[in-house]
């Protein structure tokens, strides 16, 4: 019997918006601790794929399985709990709460999961220190640079030691040098925590940080690249 190390497995995903087929029979497997980039031009279905894999939307057809749990069969409340406990999210512009200092932004998911505030904030401070933000823990998002804010967002995504981290254009609002730093931290921290990482991007430089890249077009996976296929990944963008 074959033992699968897949943490997340989706088969036959179909998603339509009116006459548009955003996903057209997509199959994806992600191993525990693996990093996967999803690339493609605008409208190729990459963000829809992320939303389906993360249990944000239900596909029209197909299955999504997280370590034996069927996401498609879950209620909205169950999927919300799953997203809180098993997934982490990093968005393009951080989407931090402006009224909370960095350490409380990071501690928030842990507190939502029932962890006492003191313990959650202590862990948040530790994570921020690892991400080079020691001394900035009490600053509000408005007092941080774009790169610093994105590092806070990464810490927030990782505090629950999630099974999978989903990042939607995590460097989209950053300059190249800062984007590189952010990707290094994101992939490094995911590896250290044993979390799988799914990164949606249109930037080949970002995709190169991942173990594997799926290229999408018109709702389908058209190619798959493994670590080292740098020149081919660059070609996906065009």
């Amino acid at each position, binding site marked *: 019997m074959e033992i699968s190390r897949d943490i997340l497995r989706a088969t036959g995903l179909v998603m339509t918006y009116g006459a548009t087929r955003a996903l057209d029979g997509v199959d994806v497997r992600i191993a525990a601790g693996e990093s996967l980039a999803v690339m493609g031009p605008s409208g190729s279905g990459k963000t829809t794929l992320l*939303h389906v894999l993360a249990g944000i939307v239900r596909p029209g057809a197909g299955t999504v399985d997280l370590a034996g749990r069927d996401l498609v069969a879950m209620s909205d409340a169950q999927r*919300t709990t799953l*997203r809180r406990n098993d997934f982490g*999210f990093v968005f393009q512009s951080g*989407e931090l*709460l402006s*009224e*909370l200092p960095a350490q409380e932004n990071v501690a*928030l998911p842990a*507190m939502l999961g029932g962890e006492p505030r003191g313990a959650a904030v202590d862990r948040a401070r530790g994570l921020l220190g690892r991400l080079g933000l020691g001394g900035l823990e009490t600053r509000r998002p408005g007092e941080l640079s774009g790169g610093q804010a994105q590092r806070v967002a990464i810490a927030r995504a990782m505090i629950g030691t999630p099974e999978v981290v989903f990042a939607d254009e995590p460097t989209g609002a950053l300059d190249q040098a800062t984007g590189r730093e952010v990707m290094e931290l994101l992939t490094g921290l995911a590896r250290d925590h044993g979390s799988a990482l799914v990164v949606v991007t249109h930037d080949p430089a970002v995709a190169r940080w991942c173990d594997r890249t799926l290229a999408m077009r018109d709702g389908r996976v058209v190619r798959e690249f493994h670590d080292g296929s740098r020149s081919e990944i660059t070609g996906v963008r065009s």
Partner: protein
Amino acid sequence: MTTLRIWWSLARHTRSESRLPTVLAVVAFAVTTWAVLTVAGGVQAFASRVDQPWAGSEAEVYPFLSWVAVALLVVPTATLGAAAARLTIARRDTRLARLRLTGATTGQISTIAVLDAVSQAAIGAVSGVLVNAAATPAVALLRFQGRAFDPSELRLGAGWVVLAVVSVLLVATTSSVVSLRRVAITPLGVAKRLPPKALSWARVLPVLILGLAFVVAFNAGSVVFGFGMAVGALILAGLLAGAFAVFNLVGPLFVSLLGRLLGARARSVETLLAARRMSEDPRSVWRSVGGIALVTFVAGCLSVTPGMTSGQDSALGADIGTGAAVTLVISAVLAAVSTGVTQASRVLDSASRYRMLHLAGTDVEVLHRARSRETWIPLVVTMGGAAALSLLIISPVLALLRTAPVGVLWFVGCAVVGAGLVLLAARASRPLVTASAGVVQTL
């Protein structure tokens, strides 16, 4: 002309999901206008009764008391008008940013935003005039000086009505211009919400100045009323209005302090979010609760009135109670609508964050509870503080509450109804939060 055309096109093509804030803004402007006209009608009626042959020696006191009511209602009325204008600006950020990106100048953007607010204010003001006209016969049923009003006593002349409408439009224009200063729309078409300015402790200074003014006025009471009842009444009404303006200045400082204290001790996410919001933007939180806190203070002070007037033949005591109740009802309605509008503005400002929080696994109920706490916690604390302050002021005659406990019942009843209205209004924006958080489910 081009700017007008763009604004008209935007106004016509407002999508259906944006209609709730529009309706709220129009309702807020309508309520503001209705309150202004109703109170002004009352002032006019009491002034005209002074010269009536049946008017007793106390008739001159009534116009004075009506000015006190005006002083009480100025702040909550202006606050509501301003909140409505802010709501109009809040929901336009993204569209204005897109316009900026397509080449509109800062001047054009500002004009469009102000036109938006003023047009909604105009619709609201006209509605307010109509509501006032329809409600006047009901208001006329109120009995003062032993008789009900004739509706004609309460109806204002056309000039006064126009003045009231113009005042509401002015408040809308000023507030929308001020609100626009908080939204910096860059040439790249990004609407950036600037953090609220920190509060200065200098806000406490006017308290000292006003305290001094009160001491002078009361010590020179004979001098003040030496100018005649009308002038003396105006001076006192002015002092009272000043007191409320000062209360309004210090209130946000108090909310900010409360937020910090609560934030340091919060154990749950909901309380932490509420506390941080209170310390981040205390002005906005105060707008929701300040009106009711002011009214609680006044109702507390007036709770001894039944005790003071029991056993007297004069109708004045009972009339003060009725007048205070009417003022309280109007204030409660203004505060409740203000809360609804403020909450809606805040939800619209935070829509994308609500969406992302829910996407990352936050239950919508947690968002609802956080919003609820940022209203009821400061509401309860400020009302409690206002009640305690009023009891302190009436402490020399506190025994009167025992002789006429109806005053206590009236006070508690008013406070509970007022607070209930505010909390209900805060709940009104729940659908907006759910819609903001739930957008991801319908992608």
